[in-house]
């Protein structure tokens, strides 16, 4: 069956099966920045923005996204690049597998709360797991990145 979505501001028609998850659809169509870390929305690396809200694409049926705007990290490249600079400064980069999902979640946080405290950052990103860092360097990077916008 066919489904119409907008991915990173470009209209797309995907041929999907009704039991297909968005993560699989996106990776199948070359959006490889969206990663698979688990199968039950508990790690966060498959995060995309669905109409600007972060969702776990590994458990979202593609069929439910008809007419929606989907954003992957390629759609917020300016913000991602800026976050990357701060993460470089803070030594917050390690394996990088969760990095695109961090940028997307930070972007969504910025829309809801442009001046978050560290505690608010931690709570908003609680679903984005990282096993490499101690988290602290990521939180500092995100805070500094958001401060840049002020």
């Amino acid at each position, binding site marked *: 069956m066919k489904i119409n979505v907008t991915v990173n501001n470009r209209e797309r028609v995907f041929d999907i099966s009704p039991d297909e998850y968005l993560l699989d659809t996106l990776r199948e169509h070359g959006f490889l920045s969206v990663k698979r870390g688990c199968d039950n929305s508990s790690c966060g690396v498959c995060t995309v923005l669905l109409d600007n809200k972060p969702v776990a694409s590994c458990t979202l049926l593609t069929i439910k996204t008809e007419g929606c705007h989907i954003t992957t990290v390629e759609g917020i490249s300016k913000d991602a690049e800026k976050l990357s600079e701060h993460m470089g400064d803070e030594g917050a980069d390690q394996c990088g*597998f969760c990095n695109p999902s961090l940028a997307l979640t930070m972007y969504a946080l910025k829309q809801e709360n442009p001046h978050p405290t560290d505690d608010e950052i931690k709570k908003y990103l609680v679903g984005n797991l990282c096993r490499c860092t101690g988290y602290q360097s990521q939180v500092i990077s995100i805070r500094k990145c958001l401060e840049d916008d002020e």
Partner: protein
Amino acid sequence: MKVVNNKVPSIDGKGLMMGRPAYTDDLAERNSLIVKILRSPHPHAKILEIDYSEALKLPGVELVLTHKDFTRKSFTRAGQGYPEPSPYDKFVLDEYVRYIGDEVCCVAAISDKICREALELIKVKYEILEPILDFEKAIDSETIIHPEDGIFEQFPIGFEPKRNIAAAYHMEVGSVEKDLKESEVTLEDSFYTQAQAHVMLEPHTVNARIDYQNRLVLYTSTQTPVHVRRIISQALDIPLSRIRVIKPRVGGGFGGKQHIHGEMFVTTVTLKTGKPSKMVYTREEVFESSYSRHPMRIDVKLGASKDGVLESIDCHILSDTGAYGEHALTVFMVAGSKVLPLYNKVKSVRFYGEVVYTNHTPAGAYRGYGAIQGNFALESAIDMLVEKLGIDPLEFRDKNMIKQHETSPIFAIMGEGTEGTAMTMESCELEYCLHRGRELIGWDDIYPYKQVSKTKRRSVGMAIAMQGSGIPYIDMGSATIKLNDDGFYNLMVGATDIGQGSDTILAQIAAETLQCKIEDMVVYSSDSDLTPFDTGAYASSTTYVSGNAVYKAAKLMREMLIEEASVALKVKPEDIEYDGKTFKANDKTITINDLSNRLYYNEDQKQLVATGSYFGTKSPPPFMAGYVEIEVDTETGEVDIMNYVSVVDCGTTINPMLAKGQVEGGIMQGIGMAMYEEVLYTKKGKLITNDLMNYRIPTRLEVKKLTTEFADSYEESGPYGAKSVGEIGIDTPPAALANAIYNAVGVRLKTLPLTPEKIFMAMKKREEDNNE
């Protein structure tokens, strides 16, 4: 130094943030067959019959493989020095299954969905066998987990499969029994550690194809590409020269990608069908069917004089390797060799025990292997002993611990499966770490605890630790540097960046030596066809071993450049001064750009390539002191972690920010093991904690603050004075937290993880005991 010991951002951070294809599954062929495994629902059974006729009828199913499709040849999946100190007790597929999740058969199909449907159509008849699910009952049990023929040890490791023993070991210095009898104060207790899971966010992933030269090409998320190539070649009888193993970007390893996983299956599928294939573990498979940390029971006896001199340590360990003996002996050995030398002034020390098979998920390599288990036991026991002695725990450690220029007999006795290597601590700032950590945590203000509200107590606890820097005389690293026209370089290393940042720090070492910008040192890691040999990323070897190889290659390249500049300038090499940009001799000059263009386009044309390789003749340990400040709720047993202070001696930090990242990441995993990561099985042996909802790794919220500092230290034998730093961070949290909990509420927990429930029950029991 301009590049080394400076803040240099990871060379790959931006590309990975932008989501550019880099990881194994990003690089699979688009039309790859999907490979999946039918896994055992029984902890121990013999396969009587596999009927896959219905599965084969399903359109889109290409192939089903059972144990009958493989030549019966044992091997070990452990990627470590060869010949391996792990028993050859694994077959690609076998007629026995030995844990829930073990491999029964393999299916390849054109889609994930068809592959899953095919698995459902396979009917297997089993003869159910009695399992061993309690590792303390494994030795000489009526059940034998490996009764089969054709399994063996490569050299003596104490392998006795008929007794369910994968490995055993014994060593003693002096007479422990005599000294313990004579000691004025003794302590004896047992400690238990659990099968922690790695939880790297990228699951185990591999894909295979046959290239236009008819060679097998594997992309695999591995820490040990050369071991992968060798093990596949040996187990499947494929000439080594026909296999190319490419390690792309790896999404975390922590030891979990030091064995082979799906490599045998995709290789076989691709060779049999001629089609590309791929395998991505589900998270459930990562938990149930890869491997985890060896659970251990550690029996410790300590003897000391009344005035606080530690005289004797006795350590017996029973370790559970699960269904297969991967890293069975070496993990066990590290629990002694990288723990006991911390207290090097004892008159006697004994270390012995067994590693046993059970019908649980296998155990294997995991960051800090053995050391974290041993450290939890010893550093808990030390605090228990000092309480008996009535001495301050920091004073006791200061008096008894290893210091610079000292040694321990254990270094020479215990290696990884073989004898060790004697060494003296040329760099050891443990004393500084101990004192600086005390200041940073505010020990003197809080110890043992402060009542902060009616129901909350603030307390501190600590532990010291050591690791190593590679395995002497075994781990080898090498690096090749190629000069390009216009004067920039390629650095090709076999060392495997798995997220720890080794590509960046190795580039820093090369750039420092050649005095170039880091941007002019383009790193490639790793590809068995293109990059030189390196045993891989494990045993804290990369900075020290591979780093030394890079340093040697860069030194050689520098000499070659000066030689060529002397030809170009028609002067003697010794007259040349080089600042990284321009070669000068008297009034003659040539830039590196002009020299390289001359070499490649104009005169005396030749390619400049320099290769360096290195193996350690010792393994200088990094050291650290870990201090934790916690708040315990005396009504519920809940623990808040307020601050974890790490003061680390890893020699020179090649990249202080990335070194900090290694320490803090290790600390967080150690805290996870200490506090949250409960491993539960059903009575039938099924892993309950097999997803991220039931297996709780720390999130962003649990730890309030991390404070990390490095001691000013220089290791003469390391590149620019560096030692390795990948594992040391993980070692201290279990003991430091157990000690802090004791200091807060007076209950001593000896079984990990230290959950609120256990704390609460222990407090309750103590109250009841007091009332009696």
